[in-house]
């Protein structure tokens, strides 16, 4: 009687790549809910459009590459890219913007490199940056948080939002406005205190900036849940947030007119938490060792602050992550962990001593 010849180990832990991706999706839910509450239907519509576009693009390329479509779609990686992109794009952005960004992410940044696992850059961030550079006006128009809307203005309803997104209708005046990071960028010559007093985004905030603080808090919670589930290690996110906090403390400058903002504001504004827990932790394009992730995270944190404070874009997570992706293989070279029985760690390019 013949039996199968299989290499050990026999049996696997019951966690598949698809399940990991589903957990990540689940963890974005709190953030999505808070953002939707603050900014209306726009984000949900973004995500729906992005998901549809991502799945279609992925299926199309898989078909062209003669790969089983269903098998690959079940790893949910396209959906994760789409959701992250949908969360990052401004609400009520025109539909074509979302489609272009998503298609670019999936087709150029992911499938052309060989599909899941082979892409050197985070696809969602590539899509975001392409959209940001190509369509700066659409990409920098954000919706005003719900609690700051004038008494007679409200966020567009579902149908109205769809009309704005698909038919290009203009939203009512007062529905769109600046973000906290925008404000800091464009408030030269004012003390931090003055900015805080002059603008309702800050004056009516609990601790960082109306709308954004709670959204970031929600992403933080989702991220911590993933950390608890051991989907990723703490090294990347903590290094990034730590460096960002450290930098903003160093350059806080007592709140003078040159100050780029307080640590709390930086940690809880823009895409800080989304970036730290959902983008920096993207395993495919990040470094592989824990020591490497510390450096990688810190590099991204540093770049985020540098670009926010002195660059020309108000938020910088996407740029910082892409630059970090560039550096990842180099960091990997120098951060191979010390193996059991070796007195020190080696470099990835070390040559074996000739026998």
């Amino acid at each position, binding site marked *: 009687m013949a039996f199968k010849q299989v*290499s050990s180990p026999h049996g696997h832990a019951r966690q598949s790549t698809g399940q990991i991706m589903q957990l990540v999706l689940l963890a974005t839910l709190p953030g999505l809910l808070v953002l939707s509450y603050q900014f209306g239907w726009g984000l949900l519509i973004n995500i729906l459009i992005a998901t549809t576009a991502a799945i279609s693009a992925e299926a199309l390329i898989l078909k062209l590459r*003669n*790969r*089983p479509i269903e*098998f690959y779609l079940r790893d949910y990686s396209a959906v994760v890219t789409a959701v992250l992109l949908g969360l990052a794009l401004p609400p009520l952005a025109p539909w074509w913007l979302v489609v272009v960004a998503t298609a670019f992410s999936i087709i150029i940044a992911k499938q052309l490199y060989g599909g899941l696992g082979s892409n050197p850059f985070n696809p969602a961030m590539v899509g975001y940056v392409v959209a940001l550079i190509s369509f700066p006006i659409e990409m920098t128009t954000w919706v005003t948080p719900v609690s700051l809307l004038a008494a007679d203005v409200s966020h567009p309803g579902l149908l109205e939002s769809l009309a704005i997104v698909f038919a290009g209708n203009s939203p009512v005046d007062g529905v769109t406005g600046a973000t906290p990071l925008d404000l800091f960028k464009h408030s030269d010559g004012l003390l931090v205190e003055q900015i805080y007093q002059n603008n309702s985004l800050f004056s009516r905030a609990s601790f960082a900036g109306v709308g954004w603080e709670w959204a970031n808090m929600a992403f933080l919670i989702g991220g911590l849940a993933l950390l608890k589930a051991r989907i990723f290690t703490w090294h990347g996110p903590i290094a990034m947030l730590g460096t960002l906090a450290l930098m903003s403390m160093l350059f806080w400058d007592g709140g003078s007119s040159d100050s780029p903002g307080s640590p709390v504001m930086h940690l809880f504004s823009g895409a800080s938490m989304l970036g730290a827990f959902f983008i920096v932790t993207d395993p495919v394009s990040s470094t592989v060792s824990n020591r490497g992730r510390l450096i990688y995270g810190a590099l991204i944190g540093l770049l985020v602050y540098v670009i926010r404070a002195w660059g020309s874009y108000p938020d910088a997570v996407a740029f910082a992550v892409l630059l970090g992706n560039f550096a990842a293989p180099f960091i990997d070279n120098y951060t191979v962990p010390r193996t059991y029985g070796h007195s020190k760690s080696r470099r990835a390019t070390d040559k074996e001593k000739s026998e």
Partner: protein
Amino acid sequence: MISLLTDNTMLAALIALVGLGTLFGGLLGYAAERFKVGSDPIVQQLDDLLPQTQCGQCGFPGCRPYAQSIADGDAINKCPPGGQSTINAIANLLDISAPSLDEEHGEEEMRTIAYIREDECIGCTKCIQACPVDAILGAAKLMHTVIAAECTGCDLCVEPCPVDCIDMLPIVKNIDQWQWPAPPNPLDLIATTASAMQEDAA
């Protein structure tokens, strides 16, 4: 002088460029000499990568002459015993793209070893003279035998044998030499499943 330069921007630019060129060229030249990495001559490195079967299938009398020829610009895909892995290694060393094996010089085959059917051997010493690595033992009119451990499987002894008593036999793998095969490339696997699935559907 200064005024001449400021008046003639063309001249100033020219001088600046030539000056910079000279400066950096000199620097680079100095660095190339000063920090020269001492390494084996390229022929030696190439020879190290060749399988040393000395079979002459490449058209050269031995591995070193072929290494010399590669160093002089010959094609790197003429070595069937080394096969694709040797081609890849040489391509890697020379930093060029790896071509596939030139079929004119033979095909990559399983490694073999020469065996002399000793009953039939007439002791002509022709194979001894042909063996490039002195791996055949024997004397005139006495039986010859191959030192299996030294045989490179070059095939050169087979032709001269007047009674055809030399066989090239593949090396038999025993249980100690067995190894786990590399798992199939997942992408290949999926592609075949894809075609299989398409066939099923059709």
